[in-house]
């Protein structure tokens, strides 16, 4: 049954992307700025509608490959918000991108479509196609500054490693299909007991996890992240950091909690090693970093590790914590990158030392960047603090049954302490950095102000009143009787 009302948001996002391409043909080059604001406004409308009247009805469609439930809606809202802010920050970054600006906006929209589909994927085929839509789009976005060798290099590194990861994933899907005779999550879930003894199925599942591990930059598939984050244009990095990672996590959460919960529970030792390794690698390597975007790359690895804590816990509270932390992560990282884009014209290079004097040049941007890093470091009352508490609590609840969880908690706490050092290094540079190269004031555009106000509002509001988002996140991870029944019916 094809119910196109389920994919209204996806269709509209494609139309916005195509519209950006078309409109560019008729407007003069001087109106490029308006094109960016227009795209952002269109995405903003989608976001407003997605939260309200346009919110798709819950249901399964397209031969059970596409599901709309609270989990999907939760992530779709955040993906739309991410794309909205990324387009706004691109407006300020535009001079650095040069030609092909409308294509950049269009590609952001197409990557967004991939993420929207990923949030609803209920089948390994849909999972693969949506992930590839995201990945192939990011090959282009990451290397968008063709004239900069660093950007090209970032694109090629992402291309090679991303393609290897999709190779593993495709082979894994082939093995899963061969042993389960289906790629549907519902069917796989209903046959878990017999499949748990099939070596072919388990190998296939492991290879699919490799592909997802690459997307979220989890140890040992994290090698690409620092280089790609450093070399890519800042708006592309921002979208990669929030959107691509969140898409990986929504697929991971859906796969682990809905398709193969029993097998994943048996594999928790593997996941513990993965989470601990990711946190340790990200935190230790971030310590000596002097480049702001590269630091964000390592920080993103460490944060993938914290998010994995919630997956390791294999409980409703763990999934809730993942959703809540990702929500906060969207606001925090987008705020940081909006500032990076806004100062790109005025501050030479990405070195942390070059942030010196920002506190005097633009108190607003300096405060926004500081709030973002304070939240990333997990200081109350910001959203990052509460998210980390929830994740650690979820792991702690399961620790009685799995002693290895205590070790994981210890690694996570050490990681948080180390993160204080490198995040506060940035803040120190902003306010107390020596030898500022210039003290000329930096003006902020309207788009940046809107984006930053939304992000900072989110960081502070969710930190002070976490229950608002927590309630929605909690509802999103509850097993739904309607969807479960539909999946059950599909299985027979």
């Amino acid at each position, binding site marked *: 049954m094809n119910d196109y009302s389920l994919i209204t948001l996806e269709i509209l996002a494609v139309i916005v992307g195509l519209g950006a391409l078309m409109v560019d043909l008729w407007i003069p080059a001087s109106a490029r700025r308006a094109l960016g604001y227009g795209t952002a406004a269109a995405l903003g409308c989608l976001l407003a509608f997605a939260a309200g009247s346009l919110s798709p009805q819950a249901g399964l469609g397209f031969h059970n490959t596409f599901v709309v439930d609270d989990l999907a809606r939760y992530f779709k809202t955040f993906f739309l918000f991410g794309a909205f802010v990324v387009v706004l920050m691109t407006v300020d970054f535009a001079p650095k991108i040069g030609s092909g600006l409308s294509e950049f906006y269009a590609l952001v929209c197409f990557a967004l479509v991939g993420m929207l589909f990923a949030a609803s994927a209920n089948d390994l*085929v849909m999972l*693969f*196609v949506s992930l*590839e839509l995201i990945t*192939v789009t990011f*090959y*282009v976005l990451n*290397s968008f500054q*063709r*004239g900069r*060798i*660093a950007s*090209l*290099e*970032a*694109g*090629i*590194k992402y*291309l*090679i490693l991303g*393609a*290897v990861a*999709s*190779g*593993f994933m*495709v*082979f894994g*899907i*082939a*093995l899963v*299909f*061969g042993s389960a*005779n*289906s*790629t549907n999550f519902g069917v796989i879930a209903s046959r878990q007991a017999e499949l748990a003894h099939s070596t072919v199925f388990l190998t296939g599942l492991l290879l699919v996890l490799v592909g997802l591990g690459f997307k979220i930059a989890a140890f040992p598939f994290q090698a690409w992240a*620092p*280089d790609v984050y*450093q*070399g890519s244009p800042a708006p592309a990095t921002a979208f990669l950091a929030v959107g691509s990672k969140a898409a990986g996590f929504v697929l991971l959460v859906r796969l682990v909690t809905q398709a193969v919960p029993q097998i994943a529970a048996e594999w928790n030792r593997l996941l513990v090693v993965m989470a601990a390794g990711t946190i340790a690698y990200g935190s230790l390597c971030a310590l*000596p*970093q002097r480049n702001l975007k*590269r630091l964000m790359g390592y920080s993103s690895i460490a944060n993938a590790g914290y998010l994995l804590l919630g997956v390791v816990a294999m409980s409703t509270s763990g999934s809730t914590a993942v959703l809540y932390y990702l929500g906060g992560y969207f606001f925090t990282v987008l705020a940081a990158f909006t500032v990076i884009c806004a100062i790109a014209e005025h501050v030479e290079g990405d070195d942390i030392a070059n942030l010196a004097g920002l506190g005097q040049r633009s108190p607003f941007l300096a405060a926004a960047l500081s709030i973002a890093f304070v939240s990333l470091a997990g200081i109350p009352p910001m959203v990052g603090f509460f998210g980390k508490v929830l994740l650690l609590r979820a792991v702690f609840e399961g620790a009685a049954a799995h002693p290895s969880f205590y070790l994981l908690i210890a690694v996570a706490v050490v990681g948080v302490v180390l993160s204080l050092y490198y995040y506060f290094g940035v803040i120190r540079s902003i306010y107390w950095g020596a030898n500022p190269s210039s003290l000329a004031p930096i003006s902020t555009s309207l788009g940046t102000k809107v984006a930053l106000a939304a992000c900072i509002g989110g960081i502070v509001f969710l930190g002070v009143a976490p229950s608002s988002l927590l309630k929605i996140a909690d509802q999103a991870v509850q097993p739904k009787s309607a969807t479960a029944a539909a999946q059950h019916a599909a299985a027979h």
Partner: protein
Amino acid sequence: MNVGLQHYLIVSGLLFSLGLLGVVVRRNLLVIFMGLELMLNAANLSLVAFSRYNANLDGQVMVFFIITVAAAEVAVGLALIVALYRKRQTAHVEDLTTLKL
């Protein structure tokens, strides 16, 4: 000799390993790219074989998706390699050393 499912799977596994070996060992971006294509096609072969022996056509549909995605990947990838070559006159991974600590 009767050719069965496991024969196809062994060939597919070999192809996959050869592709991966190519990616890991070779230093030229174009050859690495060929290795990547080999990995994807190994998966295609096993999907078709599973599809045939399980009498379930879903696997063959998946192959179409993979071929399409691989084509898109090649289009973007080759464009990137050409752009790099124009800039650096090289397509070797040893020369990709701009991004470091």
